[in-house]
């Protein structure tokens, strides 16, 4: 029952909330923090209208643990926050990874460390891609660059979460969350609203065996087995890595940038192309798994790289790891607290292009 294409003009935050409802998310647990407040505000009325439930939790710690509980029952559930709140959610995210609970978490990245500011930043890249809590784990991470992509990837996030029994993070920033754009909402078909039939805790009705959702493995060798199992799952995601390549084919210099910065870099690339300069853009869409193979293929063609991030150099590590046997990447930092324009990126790009 795909709806007639209809255009709506919404903020990234609202697009994510709408995407979650389209994906039949039924529980939302939130806590106020700028710049993501539109998500819990929207959910407080719309989730209830959609037959689900909304709780404003007492803290991000509690919200993330509510998510753990709801998702353990196999119901599509979600929480959202911004950087300081994300630090508090890490405990529950580690437990969700350890006990393989599928859930969707949104971080509208703001400036840090500490209270930082409420403007856009990408300083949470490490936390978002390395497993920000304790223990050896990863989770799937999307880095949408446009409001439409935020909507689309939110729907996809729920599918990935349930297919792989993993928390999935959507990493945006204050630009994406607060920017209004026209999007075409769509309704995915055939969503399995009881996605955890073979594992979720739903009660031992009919005398079935009891089920446990847990991350404690004390018996000898048990935890190693669980770690091995989890790592095999993370390794299997390598084929799910996604990226956007723009004008990379004949480019001499590849700009690597994700999310909002990827989009701003794209504008700069367009301008250089008009001037006949051979610049292209490589924009990871999945930040974990990182699209390393695609990047390596570009390195093998002898291209040079410049990574631009709204932080002091985090994703550049992944870029360098991907191309390490062949090439290297330059890095240009945009400091949090600034809203970069395409013009500001021209000088560093030009310098690299001219080999200075």
């Amino acid at each position: 029952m795909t709806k007639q294409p209809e255009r709506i003009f919404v903020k990234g935050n609202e697009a994510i909330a709408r995407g979650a409802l389209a994906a039949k998310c039924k529980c939302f647990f939130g806590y106020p923090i700028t710049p993501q407040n539109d998500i819990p505000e929207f959910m407080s009325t719309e989730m209830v209208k959609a037959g689900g439930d909304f709780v404003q939790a007492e803290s991000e710690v509690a919200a993330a643990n509510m998510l753990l509980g709801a998702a353990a029952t196999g119901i599509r559930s979600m929480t959202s926050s911004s950087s300081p709140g994300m630090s508090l959610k890490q405990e529950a995210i580690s437990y969700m990874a350890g006990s393989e609970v599928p859930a969707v978490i949104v971080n509208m990245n703001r400036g840090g460390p500490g209270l930082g500011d409420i403007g856009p930043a990408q300083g949470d890249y490490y936390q978002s891609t390395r497993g920000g809590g304790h223990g050896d784990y990863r989770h799937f991470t999307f880095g949408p660059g446009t409001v439409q992509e935020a909507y689309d990837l939110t729907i996809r996030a729920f599918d990935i979460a349930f297919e792989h029994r993993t928390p999935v993070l959507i990493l945006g920033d204050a630009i994406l969350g607060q920017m209004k754009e026209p999007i075409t909402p769509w309704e995915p078909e055939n969503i399995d609203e009881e996605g955890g039939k073979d594992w979720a805790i739903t009660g031992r009705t009919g005398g079935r065996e009891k089920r446990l959702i847990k991350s404690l493995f004390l018996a000898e060798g048990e935890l190693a087995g669980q770690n091995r199992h989890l790592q095999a799952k993370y390794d299997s995601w390598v084929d799910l890595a996604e990226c956007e390549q723009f004008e990379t084919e004949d480019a001499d210099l590849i700009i690597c940038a994700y999310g909002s910065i990827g989009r701003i870099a794209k504008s700069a690339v367009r301008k250089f192309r008009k001037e006949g300069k051979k610049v292209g853009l490589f924009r990871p869409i999945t930040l974990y798994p990182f699209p390393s193979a695609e990047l390596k293929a570009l390195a093998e063609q002898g291209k040079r790289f410049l990574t631009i991030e709204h932080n002091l150099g985090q994703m550049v590590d992944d870029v360098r790891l991907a191309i390490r046997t062949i090439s290297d990447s330059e890095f240009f930092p945009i400091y949090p607290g600034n809203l970069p324009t395409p013009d500001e990126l021209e000088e560093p790009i030009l310098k690299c292009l001219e080999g200075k």
Partner: protein
Amino acid sequence: MSEMNEKLVFDKPESVIDRATHYCPGCHHGIAHRLVGELLDEMNLAEKTLMTTSIGCSVFLYNYLNVDAVEAPHGRAPAVATGVKRARPDHFVFTYQGDGDLASIGMAEIMHAANRGEKMSVVFVNNTVYGMTGGQMAPTTLIGQKTTTSPAGRCQATQGSPIRMSEIIASLGGVAYAARGSLDCVKNIRAAKKHLRKAFECQINGTGFGFVELLSGCPTNWKMTPIQANERIQTEMIPYFPLGVFKDISEEGGIC
């Protein structure tokens, strides 16, 4: 006496799994488990139960009760159970928590779940110490009580006073039932079971949040024999933590 005349008068509840526990001799966690198991059977709740376990000596509760369960991080059980109940409102949801778990690291979660009036039940085992980690001071440790982190005895001036959780919980709007029982003797165990039944009923008929504190012995960390531990509950704990029902609106038809 022929076999025919023998009558079984005391058996393991079906909801309690037939296996040895890891508890120390004289530990009261096993009694608390059994009371919960008996009620799950008697109230026919086992198949619709979604239990939230916590971190403490009772962390393996899910190996002893035959119900579906999710393991919460230390102190977070009331938040996890909130999520469980909101996602599956037709199920029977309870948490089982120690005093370090509930009254220290999980203070925010228990207060707000209670205040929201979540339709869930809480079994709170107060043994005045952090049992699992080796007997450190808990928020419920009595003044003068020696623990590994209050070797000279808990000092009120620098370490505060033991927290009376049942009284605090009873003061919150969303709470339908709050009571304190004790597991030191048969009489008190019977009363404790009545409290638990009332708390469970409050959830089943949608009245509100039910909370039962159980004064429990930890002979190991109290460095006592099981009998001395029972006596300590009578002589030291009950005078500070009085037994009884602190709130019961179950007869009044519920709260919004």
